[in-house]
């Protein structure tokens, strides 16, 4: 192997050495790139191809149907219902989960005894598998389970409510589980953002007579803007792709009341062997996330001209 600096110096003159530099780069880049193309890019392209066929995943791919799968999906009330469920979870996450995470991050952004333990504890659900969360939550929320005992003890509701089997409560129950599992993640992001804000700024505001509340409202939050926007974006993307938790708790039921786009895609594609149709749903999911990311990048994140979000 030629040494780098001399190779770099000579590369400008000799074509053979330039070739060698390129070979060096390829050697490093290729394993990751090949793996990534094979298992990430190629499947995405394949999904786009499958989506144009009526196909059960086994026989040869012959039954070309054009965009019929997309028309069918967008006309299916069950899929439309799934979209509204995802949308509801997005709205609830932004309205409840992120403000909660922000409030806790502000509380933990001061030095006090026990802060480290609380931070460790609040983030812990994020590393617990969604499957484990889902199994324990199912048992807690089953009729006459821990949740019912608790509700009876504080005098709300009766001792028997099938939280996850009642179409009226299932989405709220799921949202509660999602918040339990993910608020800590957003709290940690926001806490990292808060720690990047010089404390002197809040102190200066206090000297100028601002109350703590005013200091947060007019100094801290505007400076935290970039981090909040990243947190909001990740929350939206996560809510759109929600799968494991729903699949293990309800499989989208009862009567599709908790169906999400990813659950619908998996159910049609894998369980019912409608690979072409399921792929069309997957493509819709891809496009949605991609457009959302581009739009977010273009209109929301771009305002952070020198924020942490633009380098790296």
């Amino acid at each position, binding site marked *: *192997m030629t*040494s780098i*600096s001399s190779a770099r110096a000579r590369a400008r003159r000799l074509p053979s050495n330039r070739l060698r530099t390129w070979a060096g*780069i390829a050697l*490093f*880049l290729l*394993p*990751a*790139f090949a*793996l990534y193309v*094979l*298992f*990430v*890019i*190629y*499947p*995405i392209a*394949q*999904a786009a191809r*499958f989506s144009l066929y009526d196909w059960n*995943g086994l026989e040869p791919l012959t039954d070309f149907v054009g965009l019929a799968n997309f028309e069918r999906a967008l006309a299916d009330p069950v899929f439309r219902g799934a979209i509204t469920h995802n949308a509801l979870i997005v709205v609830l996450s932004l309205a409840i989960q992120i403000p909660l995470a922000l409030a*806790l991050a502000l*509380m933990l952004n001061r*030095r*006090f005894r026990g802060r480290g333990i609380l931070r460790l504890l*609040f*983030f812990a659900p994020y*590393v617990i*598998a969604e*499957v*484990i*969360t889902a*199994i*324990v939550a*199912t*048992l807690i929320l*089953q009729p006459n389970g*821990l949740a019912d*005992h608790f509700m009876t003890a504080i005098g709300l509701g009766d001792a028997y409510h099938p939280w996850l089997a009642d179409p009226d409560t299932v989405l709220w129950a799921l949202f509660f589980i999602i918040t*339990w599992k993910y608020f800590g993640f957003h709290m*940690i*992001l926001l806490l990292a953002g808060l720690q990047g804000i010089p404390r002197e700024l809040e*102190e200066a505001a*206090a000297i100028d007579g601002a109350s*703590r509340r005013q200091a947060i409202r007019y100094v801290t939050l505007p400076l935290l803007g970039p981090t909040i926007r990243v947190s909001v974006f990740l929350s939206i993307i996560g809510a759109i*792709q929600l*799968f*494991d938790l729903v*699949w293990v708790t309800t499989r989208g039921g009862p009567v599709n009341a908790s169906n999400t786009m990813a659950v619908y895609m998996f159910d049609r594609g*894998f369980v019912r062997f409608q*690979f072409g149709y*399921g*792929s069309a749903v*997957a493509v819709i*999911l891809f496009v949605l*996330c991609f457009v959302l*990311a581009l739009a977010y990048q273009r209109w929301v994140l771009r305002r952070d001209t020198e924020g942490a*979000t633009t*380098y*790296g």
Partner: protein
Amino acid sequence: MADSAVAPRSPGTRVARLAGSIVRWVVLLGVATVILIPVAYAVLGGFRNAAQLAANPVGLPDPWIWSNYIDSLTGPSFWVQLRNSILVAAITTTIVVLFGSLAAFVLARRRFRGREVTYTVFTLGLLFPATVAILPLIILVRDLGLQDTPLGIALPQAAFGLPLTIIILRPFFRSIPMELEDAAAIDGCGQLGFFFRILLPLSRPALATVAVLAIVSSWNQFVLPLVMLSSESNWTLPLGLTNFSTQYTTDTARILAYTSLALIPALAFYVVAERQIVGGLAAGSVKG
């Protein structure tokens, strides 16, 4: 507290301050309780029987029943699934750290045409988890003859783990001075030598971060094992857990014991590796 130095000290503010402090502790301890309850419920529930769970799921078990845990620990499936989970996590992590650091090296320290495009293509992967591409992945893994093998899960997992790995490693590798590389070159150290003998040892904290994140995401992965693994002897813990819980639907206590056993290694790992997980995710998301 840092702001006490500048705050005015009238009695009114002192009362407000005390009230604020009380509110803060009530909220923080309330949230802490809500987090702890399900975990305590699962661990303690494993020591009850179904009748106890139905009658009184709160408080300590009376009497303590050990058979649920003992049955799970002496039965074959828990250990087989634990081994499979460790095996898949080890393969995934090795691949993602090795391939990811090789790629991050040239993406950080070499100038070449198409570098930024390549990097952007890698970062886009952050948008999609394997779940969204699961249908074509089933076909691909089947065509490669890897269905029902640990590799059939580890390879896609590693591929989907590359974006975060590269995003975390690139700025770290870039921050290592070029002079160091030039000095190494003068001493006759080639590109590969510099990478393995100097860059990687210097990057140990960043490598630990990406390795820990790869382990956690592999450990928790559900949908890939669900579609790829048909023989029970290959199941990982999350897949084994879901099947266990549908098999013993009525025996809640057994499910809780099994779930707790699967939960404990993950929580222990978290307590040890919290710094890497938190630091890595915060850095990765902010820079994404």
